[in-house]
């Protein structure tokens, strides 16, 4: 059946690399295709992508990958070092650390995704509106942003979680509240540059209402910066979540959140180093993955040396 598949493949490739596009969809898909190709030319970025794909797969297939249930205690097999049965050893309650790290990936993914999905749009909206309209709108919105920015991230997150109560949901809200202000600042800076460009003047000269200009013309130009910034901030988000977990304010026991695991592992560091090392390594690798991916994304979306 290869003859049936090859012409079809040729068809898709031909569609994506055609000299002339015949529809808006084709034009957008072509842009996406070439963007992906450029991304693929960057080996480190592909490593980052690889790490994130592995994270996603591990999270999805956790029940299939983890050899033991995440909360199954076995007090007779406490604090065992890494071995063939227990790849990362067992913790103070005899639970398999490897399985807990694997299930913990779900929590990590959940937190990073939710934070990004809340903080980025809020930051983008505040920043573009502030930058485009200027005047009092800008002053008020930016002073609000300044208030949030003047607190160190972790302290602010702590304050919110302390007020709202511990738990993953509140941790997500708290972290999102610390992440949106830098996004707003970034979006505002981009908007200020974009605002004085000829293409914005052109659309104003065609009678476009302000909301349309902001949403359809200004935001797309700020979007890539915000996306890149958020990916680069993912490492920080994970670490903040880990810190909250470390302090007992994020995911609550017995949830296998990596930060919480790191916290308990601290007490056993001298004798059973693997309790802390395993989740610590996981945090390191995932943060690195996001950073490399974000860098690669920046080279594609915001090329400097063209």
């Amino acid at each position, binding site marked *: 059946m290869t003859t049936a598949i090859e012409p079809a493949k040729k068809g898709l490739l031909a569609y994506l690399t055609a000299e002339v596009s015949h529809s808006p969809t084709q*034009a957008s898909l072509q842009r996406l295709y070439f963007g992906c190709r450029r991304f693929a030319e960057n080996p480190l970025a592909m490593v980052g992508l690889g790490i994130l794909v592995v994270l996603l797969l591990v999270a999805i297939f956790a029940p299939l990958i983890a050899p033991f249930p995440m909360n199954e205690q076995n007090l007779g097999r406490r604090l065992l070092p890494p071995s063939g049965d227990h790849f990362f050893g067992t913790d103070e309650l005899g639970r398999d650390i490897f399985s807990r790290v694997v299930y913990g990936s779900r929590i990590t993914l959940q937190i990073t995704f939710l934070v990004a999905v809340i903080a980025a749009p809020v930051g983008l909206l505040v920043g573009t509106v502030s930058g485009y309209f200027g005047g009092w709108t800008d002053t008020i919105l930016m002073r609000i942003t300044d208030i949030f920015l003047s607190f160190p991230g972790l302290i602010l997150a702590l304050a919110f979680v302390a007020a709202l109560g511990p738990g993953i949901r509140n941790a997500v809200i708290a972290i999102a509240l610390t992440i949106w202000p830098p996004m707003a600042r970034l979006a505002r800076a981009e908007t200020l540059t974009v605002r004085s460009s*000829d*293409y914005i003047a052109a659309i104003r000269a065609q*009678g476009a209402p302000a909301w349309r200009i902001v949403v359809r013309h200004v935001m797309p130009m700020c979007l890539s910066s915000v996306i890149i910034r958020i990916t680069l901030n993912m490492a920080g988000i994970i670490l903040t979540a880990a810190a909250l977990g470390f302090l007992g304010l994020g995911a609550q026991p017995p949830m296998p959140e990596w930060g919480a695991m790191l916290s308990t592992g601290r007490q056993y560091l001298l004798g059973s180093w693997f309790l802390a090392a395993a989740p610590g390594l996981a945090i390191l690798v995932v943060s690195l993955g996001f950073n490399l991916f974000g860098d690669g994304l920046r080279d594609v979306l915001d090329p400097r040396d063209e």
Partner: protein
Amino acid sequence: MIEVENLVVRFGRGKAAITAVDNVSFTVQTGEAFGLVGESGCGKTTILRCLAGLNQEWEGIIRIDGKQLTPKRERSFYKLAQIVFQDPYGSLHPRFTVNGTLMEPIKIHGLDRADERIDRVLKQVGLGPAFRFRYPHQLSGGQRQRVAIARALILEPKLMLLDEPTSALDVSVQAEILNLLTDIRDSTGLTFLLVSHDLSVVSHMCDRLAVMNHGQIYEELTVDDLIARRYREAYTRQLFEASLGYDKRLTSAQVAKALDEAGA
């Protein structure tokens, strides 16, 4: 078509205020091609932006097509007058295809038969349907400027405001775009207001022109008068002679004196 009376534009406040346009008055007849000539900072672009509705801080009277205008324009105004910008590399939104750029005014004004209008206007500027779904970075400077002109035409305005439409283009491309503008003028009877620092472009495209410097109109004359050297102002003569090229008879001492007097 255009009546400007005592237009004043000031930037900045108090002592640091600059008067970019200093009590300027002129008229442009319907169907005419009028040039505003001057060097950088003379105020010609500022005037154009005031007319286009992009600059809202001006005083004086502006009437277009008989109707007196306020700084803030109604949407219907934009169907009357459209502007083409100087820099083809900056005037098209990088994330919109040609189709997207041309669709925007259609959607903003709720026009019907979008495809028909887009095809017609692309044909008018000499770009085939193959260009419809290209992004600006896939177009050359001349092609981008054609798209910018198409965008201005799609609302079927009566007045075209052109801000140095060819100064950022290569000489050979400039000729094509100027010819295109001539064709459009012939086929639609549009009124043109062309701003430029290049006297040869203005003398080629326009019927009448005004020479500006330091925010004021120094002289208004017909192109025929210009060519016959029937100008009155010394500044007009300076511009005229500079446009002919370098004059080897200038001695540098004379020149230095002129330079220092001009504060250059």
